[in-house]
């Protein structure tokens, strides 16, 4: 019997040790690692045919698919500045929007909220299954719940950059999007990350350059 007990204890210890050591991916990510950078472009466009660009000096806000005005936070200013520097580095010339630029760039902050409501009556009815009122010393009693609600809210935010072809607008009668970029993840609005994030977008868009 002693053998069985000791073996059982050793076995349970082994199970606890192993299951406790499982790796949860989300717990092993830094903020930098949590971010993803997605870019796409119009493959029919030759980016060497553009020479000048202009960029909007503020950021468009889109909340839950509705226009939310414009903003110009410290981060926005830094991010736009980093975009300008990156475009210049790729060989494009920054001009005023009144000087007929070939390309227009705009930044958008996309924010979506998801809300939910938990009614305590929805789960409170199960209390008796876990702790019968007898547990508290009141056998035969039942639980009573006023109408309480718990509201939870999940917010997801992304940062988008769009590039439009102004050079051919008169011909096509539209401002065609030729490049788009999206950043999602943790810490995307940290001011000290703006340059790194912009550089990542341009590094993975090798076609986006003149020189």
């Amino acid at each position: 019997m002693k053998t069985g007990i000791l073996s059982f204890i050793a076995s349970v210890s082994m199970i606890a040790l192993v299951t406790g050591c499982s790796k949860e991916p989300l717990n092993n990510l830094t903020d930098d690692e949590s971010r993803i950078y997605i870019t796409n472009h119009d493959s029919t466009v030759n980016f060497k045919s553009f020479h000048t660009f202009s960029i909007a000096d503020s950021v468009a806000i889109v909340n839950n698919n509705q226009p939310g005005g414009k903003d110009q936070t410290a981060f926005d200013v830094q991010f736009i500045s980093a975009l300008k520097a990156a475009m210049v580095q790729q060989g494009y010339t920054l001009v005023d929007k009144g000087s007929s630029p070939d390309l227009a760039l705009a930044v958008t902050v996309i924010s979506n909220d998801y809300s939910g409501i938990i009614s305590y009556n929805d789960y409170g009815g199960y209390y008796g299954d876990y702790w019968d009122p007898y547990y508290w010393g009141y056998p035969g009693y039942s639980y009573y719940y006023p109408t309480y609600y718990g509201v939870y809210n999940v917010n997801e935010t992304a940062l988008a950059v769009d590039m439009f072809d102004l050079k051919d607008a008169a011909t096509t009668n539209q401002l065609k999007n030729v490049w788009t970029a999206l950043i999602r993840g943790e810490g995307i609005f940290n001011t000290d990350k703006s340059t790194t994030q912009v550089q990542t977008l341009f590094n993975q868009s090798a076609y986006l350059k003149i020189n």
Partner: protein
Amino acid sequence: MVIGLVSISTVKGQKGITKVEVNYSANFPTSSFKDLVNDPSFRGIDLKIMHNINDKMSVGLTTGFQDFYQKYPRAVYKLDDGSEVSAVVSNSVQTVPLLATFHYNFSPAQRLQPFAGVGVGGNMVLYRQFLGEFSDSKNKFAFQAQPKIGVYFPFREGGPTGLTLSGYYNIIPFKYNGTTNLNSFGVSLGISFPTRSY
């Protein structure tokens, strides 16, 4: 240390004995699985309950748990729609087998008892791939076959309690996102003990 303290009662034969086996296991991905997770997993356990139908043959059930994980450095991935995605990719796979198991003991009642076996059944596969913090998941009860060889070291000659050292190969077809299987080579070491005193 616990094992060293164990005292054993000797039994002459193993027929009719039901034993529980608890093993620590390490698994090494092979084949297509290596494209997902190249690192070995040292986070695993397998549990067996085996009934000796005679001195040489036993049948039973195997279950357990193995946790595979690998995080790859940031890289740019080109997708079919022409987009580029820069991400740190983390692959996480947990496997929980449920196998009907057969063991053949070549040398019962010896100090070292080599055996061979096979398990056939299913495996509950929990697969998640993270691009950064965003995940895609696929859970599937997949077929599994598990040929195995090993050796049983009874604490006393012919005793029902002892250590078991095994090597095995997991064959798990799993078609998803370019992966065709989750095959792996495994080794396990554990304790085997009867469900009651003999």
